[in-house]
């Protein structure tokens, strides 16, 4: 693959896919998100880092429309999809029915098969969710999100529960799918390496706002052994309060 990024929506590059202004979300009077501002361009891959409890998952739930107790302006595309940390497949529906769940109209089985094929799960379309491995279930959940052809894909630590090997494969898959689909992606994660590996732009959330922004200009596919990669990773870790010098000692 060439090193430049193939994206179908290059013409509308700068049109926004997400616009958030003055967003505040409080739990019992304590503002978890406090006057937050966020813009995501169409087709852009944004990773959102932050310590646990910093409000990054809350922000994702708000963008998904699952949390409406908010103040401020939030503009998101109508077609959006979420993949959660746990796959959240309906255990009483076979995999392909899970993929089609909630789609408007009466889409047929081929639609589900195609989406499952795309994530390499075509052979498990007829399985019950209980028989899937962790990685397979997560890919099914990804297929369920992609079949909606979202303009905005929200990923809430989707690789968090996977083992190291499966995670590498899943990360690669998400990268490929994003390049093929050209949708905007917001990836919430606590894995700095994952963020640098996949994102155009990494945001660090702290105290309810975006505290730091880092553009990642490395060529794709990215090489984690690249010294510039390590530099970016170290810089972000420092932002998150992890002293990499101490770690190396």
């Amino acid at each position, binding site marked *: 693959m060439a090193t430049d990024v193939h994206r179908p929506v290059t013409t509308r590059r700068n049109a926004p896919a997400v616009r958030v202004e003055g967003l505040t979300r409080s739990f019992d009077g304590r503002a978890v998100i406090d006057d937050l501002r966020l813009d995501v361009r169409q087709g852009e891959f944004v990773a959102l880092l932050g310590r646990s409890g910093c409000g990054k998952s809350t922000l994702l739930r708000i963008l*998904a*429309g*699952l949390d409406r107790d908010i103040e401020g302006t939030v503009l998101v595309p109508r077609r959006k*999809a*979420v993949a*959660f940390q*746990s796959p*959240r497949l*309906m*255990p*009483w*529906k076979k995999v392909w029915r899970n993929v089609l*769940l*909630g*789609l*408007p109209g009466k889409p047929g089985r081929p639609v589900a098969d195609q989406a499952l094929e795309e994530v390499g799960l075509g052979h498990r379309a007829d399985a*019950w*969710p*209980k028989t899937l491995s962790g990685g397979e279930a997560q890919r099914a959940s990804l297929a*369920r999100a992609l079949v*909606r052809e979202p303009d905005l894909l929200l990923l809430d630590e989707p690789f968090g529960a996977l083992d190291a090997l499966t995670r590498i494969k899943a990360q690669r898959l998400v990268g490929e799918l994003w390049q093929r689909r050209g949708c905007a992606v917001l990836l919430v994660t606590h894995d700095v390496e994952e963020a640098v590996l996949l994102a155009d732009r990494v945001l660090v959330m702290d105290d309810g706002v975006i505290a730091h922004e880092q553009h990642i200009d490395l060529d794709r596919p990215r090489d984690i052994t690249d010294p510039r990669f390590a530099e970016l990773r170290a810089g972000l870790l420092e932002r998150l309060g992890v002293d990499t010098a101490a770690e190396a000692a």
Partner: protein
Amino acid sequence: MSISHAPPSAPEPDISEIPGKDGSLELEPLVPASSRRTRVPRWLRRTTGPVVLVLLWQVLSATGVLTSDVLASPGRIAEVGRDLIADGSLTSAMGTSLQRVAAGLLLGTLVGTGLALVSGLFRIGEDLVDAPVQMLRTVPFVGLIPLFIIWFGIGEAPKIAIITLGVTFPLYLNVYAGIRGVDSQLIEAGESLGLSRWGLVRHVVLPGALPGALTGLRYSLGIAWLALVFAEQVNADSGIGFLMVQARDFLRTDVIVVCLIVYAFLGLLADFVVRSLERLLLQWRPTFTGR
């Protein structure tokens, strides 16, 4: 490292002595599960218990420990059962009883599930419905028979009403608990997939409540037969209960036992139906199925 070595004169600790005699660990073989399991098929194992009981009963009767005026022998009961079937009285009584149970079960299922849906799905429904149902639930339904006779007369209505009442509450409780036990993460996933309110109910809440509903159905079936016995022993002129009351008046323990066995078999049949339903409808469930 500043740890000094043991002095050379000290005897070397002989750790090889500890586990086994010749220095090797004692290993125990782990037997594959398939070879540990008995070869007896499950249906045979399940029928063994009842068969042993009947055999014991026959032996006790044959040796005279159980006299016939206390309890007739299984052989005698089989004979009486055959006679009752031959003259049609048992089959017609069974037909009548089955009809009553079916009607009561149907009505009770509709009422119980309906109320559970109202209070399970809507908070306002919960506020309005749950408290009265919880109050009524504690009233022993058998105690309502006299009242029902006054209200509905002595025909079919009070009998079906009693069964309905008995069936309603266990179903209500279990369906309600089933609905409220649905994983909120799945509800949220459904919402994020763009399901409508009705879509959520149909694709997420109701399937999620199904295990509870089937448990409720099991309880309900048991109570339905119980309610039937009570209902049919008051002012009935047909049905298995009536057959039993008649037999009591003539001191026919054999007929009474035949009727009891019929009840037991009908109960077993109902249980079989629910079991089959569970196997069919809950095959998705990733739960423990016993060893």
